[in-house]
């Protein structure tokens, strides 16, 4: 738990690091004040008088306390008393949530999207468009860079974890490979199980001989191979030994498969196909998912939508609607949020949830889409996505409604430690925030 990047934050350090503006902020004064009066290395933290959004069946608790010890939540309730030496944070009624899910991203897999040398999210071993190579065993988490500047940028906005996604490219296949959940604490390794990604619909056309129909043909062929109905070495065989065993693991419900798909017709085929093979699937995108809401609910398929996708941006989502999330939820579908391709701006995921709420989704479901729903879908519900005893103390104290872009994260804790609310972006901001002092800004601030 003592991972790089999350050094325990001494309260004095926090106060010093806070830029002048921050120190002026009345909101933070209370927090820093509370902080300053207690030991820097406190293992126990009591966050007092918060509006605790547990993201569990307990719902939201007003004027509640959360006690943290050894990096996990020890207790949630009213009038908790602080153990000796505990750091006490007065929340003054502000919202406290679990750290939020940042969506399916490539955080730590790409530093600058336009620079290939910094991007690791796809595998394409085949020769351009002519050759399909299928490597379900490809595990993108092995390329994860915990020193990415994207991580603090997302973290200080209350984004505590993400599902690393896998892209597709010509020379690869619609079976993209595996990702996994990373906590954005600066640690190197994923938590929870691997997740397999498959691309359907228009974005898979270039990998399926230019027809959506061939996507099912290819998937059936791969299943035949994984199940041994196509022998290794057979001219139709596409998989390596590792690929066969990887795929087999997912076929028996042993893992979650995320399908990127938007069109209702494709989703309908997906539901039939996955039922036939008894797969545990989730949908990412789901632009027209609302049109199959009852079927998705019956099949218990969680759907990760982008509620801002309300235009017929392509012929796979002519039926795109701002009300997608609300309609899905009304039918009983578990709804989560993800903006395709958003890594640098993963923090925007709050805006996705807020707009879904503005378009009719109940607020608690908006929060669930950033906490409980993804945690359960991707097998990490015992660790993140809820405030409950035994959960990791990955917490965010907000200036106000966490789903409203008008509010910000005031303090984030990872494993019970208050993180330094700094990123490369706050460094840049502070370098240019203040007036000219004669020396170029490249010199450290006190010198100027």
């Amino acid at each position, binding site marked *: 738990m003592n991972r790089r990047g999350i050094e325990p934050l001494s309260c004095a350090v926090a106060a010093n690091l806070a*830029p002048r503006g921050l120190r002026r902020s009345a909101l933070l004064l209370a927090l820093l004040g509370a902080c300053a009066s207690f030991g820097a290395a406190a293992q126990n933290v009591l966050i007092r008088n918060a509006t605790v959004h547990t993201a569990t069946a307990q719902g939201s608790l007003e004027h509640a306390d959360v006690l943290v010890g050894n990096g996990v939540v020890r207790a949630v309730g009213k009038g908790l008393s602080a153990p000796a030496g505990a750091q006490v944070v007065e929340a003054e009624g502000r919202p406290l949530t679990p750290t939020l899910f940042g969506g399916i991203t490539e955080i730590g897999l790409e530093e600058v999207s*336009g620079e290939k040398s910094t991007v690791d999210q796809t595998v394409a071993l085949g020769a351009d468009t002519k050759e399909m190579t299928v490597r379900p065993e490809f595990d993108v988490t092995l390329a994860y860079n915990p020193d990415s500047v994207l991580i603090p940028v997302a973290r200080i906005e209350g984004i505590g974890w993400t599902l690393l996604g896998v892209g597709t490219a010509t020379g690869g296949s619609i079976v993209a490979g595996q990702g996994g959940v990373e906590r954005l604490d600066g640690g190197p390794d994923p938590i929870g199980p691997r997740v397999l990604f498959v691309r359907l619909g228009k974005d898979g056309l270039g990998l399926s001989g230019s027809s959506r129909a061939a996507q099912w043909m290819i998937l059936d062929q791969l299943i035949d191979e994984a199940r041994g109905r196509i022998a290794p070495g057979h001219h139709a065989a596409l998989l390596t030994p590792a690929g066969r065993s990887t795929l087999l693991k997912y076929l028996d419900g042993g893992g979650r498969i995320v399908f990127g798909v938007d069109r209702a017709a494709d989703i309908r085929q997906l539901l039939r196909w996955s039922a036939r093979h008894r797969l545990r699937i989730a949908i990412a995108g789901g632009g027209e998912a609302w049109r199959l809401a009852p079927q998705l609910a019956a099949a218990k398929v969680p759907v990760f939508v982008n509620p801002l996708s309300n235009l017929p*941006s392509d012929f796979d*989502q002519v039926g795109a609607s701002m009300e997608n999330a609300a309609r899905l939820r009304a039918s009983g579908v578990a709804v989560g949020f993800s903006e395709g391709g958003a890594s640098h701006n993963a923090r925007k995921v709050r805006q996705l949830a807020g707009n879904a709420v503005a378009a009719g989704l109940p607020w608690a479901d908006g929060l669930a889409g950033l906490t409980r729903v993804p945690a359960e879908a991707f097998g990490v519900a015992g660790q993140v996505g809820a405030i409950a005893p035994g959960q990791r103390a990955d917490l965010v104290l907000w200036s106000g409604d966490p789903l409203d*872009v008008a509010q*910000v994260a005031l303090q984030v804790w990872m494993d019970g430690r208050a993180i330094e609310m700094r990123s490369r972006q706050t460094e840049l*901001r502070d370098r240019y925030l203040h007036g000219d002092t004669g020396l170029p800004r490249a010199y450290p601030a006190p010198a100027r």
Partner: protein
Amino acid sequence: MFRPLLAGCGLALLAGAVQAATPASASPASASRFTQDPYPSTYKAIAAGPVLLQHATVLTGAGQRLDDADVLLRDGKVVAVGRALEAPSDATRVDASGKWITPGIIDVHSHLGVYPSPGVGAHADGNEMTGPVTPNVWAEHSVWPQDPGFAAALAGGITSLQILPGSANLIGGRGVTLKNVPATSYQAMKFPAAPWGLKMACGENPKRVYGSRNTPPGTRMGNVAGYRAAFIDASEYLRKSAPKAAAPQKKRWWQSSAKPANGNGADSEKDTGGKRDLKLDTLAGAIKGDILVHIHCYRADEMTTMLDLAKEFGFKVSAFHHGVEAYKIADRLAAEGVCGALWADWWGFKMEAFDGIQENIAIVDRPANSCAIVHSDSEEGIQRLNQEAAKVIAHARLAGIDIAPERAIRWLTQNPAKALGIGERTGTLEPGKMGDVVVWNGNPFSVYAKAEQVYVDGARVYDRADPSRQPKSDFLLGQPATQTGGVR
């Protein structure tokens, strides 16, 4: 005589210009050919009676906030803003208590219509990527008025917007300013007598697009050489086009009456400089200040290069667009009267966007005479520029910069209007301005804010509560996928 019809758009001539926006072939005597418009606006405001919006919190867009205030619209104009206004007996009264009212939102950077939805190959009309210098192309000739994005933007309060060519080219072409009303032609949306924009682009895009083809430019220095070559041509063109000296040459007895050999004398209008050149027309119009220059530029150092380029050739930069590093030169931008049209939080998608910060707009807004603008460059973002501004306000507060709503609204109204040269006619709720108004369900700077009613020139063109005032693109008609079926 030589001043074009549209000269001074955004200045004193405007009222007259509106009247004078009579069709087209505006006579060569009154308009420079650089800014003649053979594709003129046919926009007509939708007929509407007087409207009195009552008891709202009004952000005027000119920096004021008025509580429990009324807005009176008549004959397409804002007539009055204030408390307990009197209205004609035939006025439609709208109880806006608890609501907020702002000027119509203006997006200075949109590709609606030129990169419309659905984004199929046949619709990719925004970048003339056949050469790096294409000031001869006009974005309006690519605008598909049936882009469903226009109506979606209207539901987000957008009443005016500039449609720009893309950023593949050093000089991408002319942008056009539209009123956001449904129409079957772009001319019927065209903001009457608004000046054109000229789209230019710095940095990675042009050098990537052309460098990868092994044609210039392949570097940033190649970019600048490309701008300079184009403006040298334009300066020469302009010089040749200038009216001859006022004093008529005295005819000498030894001179024949034949035309001079160089052909310049053949020009009866004394301003053509020979064969007309569409590229140079546009650049000459920019140098003369009749076409407003909008430059896609991310890095601070490149923006300063472009400011020098502008001085070298005597044009003015109206706005830098995207400018993720604008905060590094905020004082200079304000001092030179250059707007920064910026995103709230987008960054990192390419190297020149690596230094983006969420306080960019707030820092650019800080100096005196600043002109900070929230822009979209996105069919999604344009629907909620208010939310983008809300993010800026929230993060600025965290950095110790408090920004009141009446100031922030200017990023979406007054400032973009200024950058588009339509600031004398829209962008604020001042008497005489166009009746471009949004009624919000509350404070617009929130994720929960919704435009409930949108007025353009005094007409209710969108109403969230009235399906008869919710326009829909032809494209969406008869699409089974849009039907709610049995779901809800």
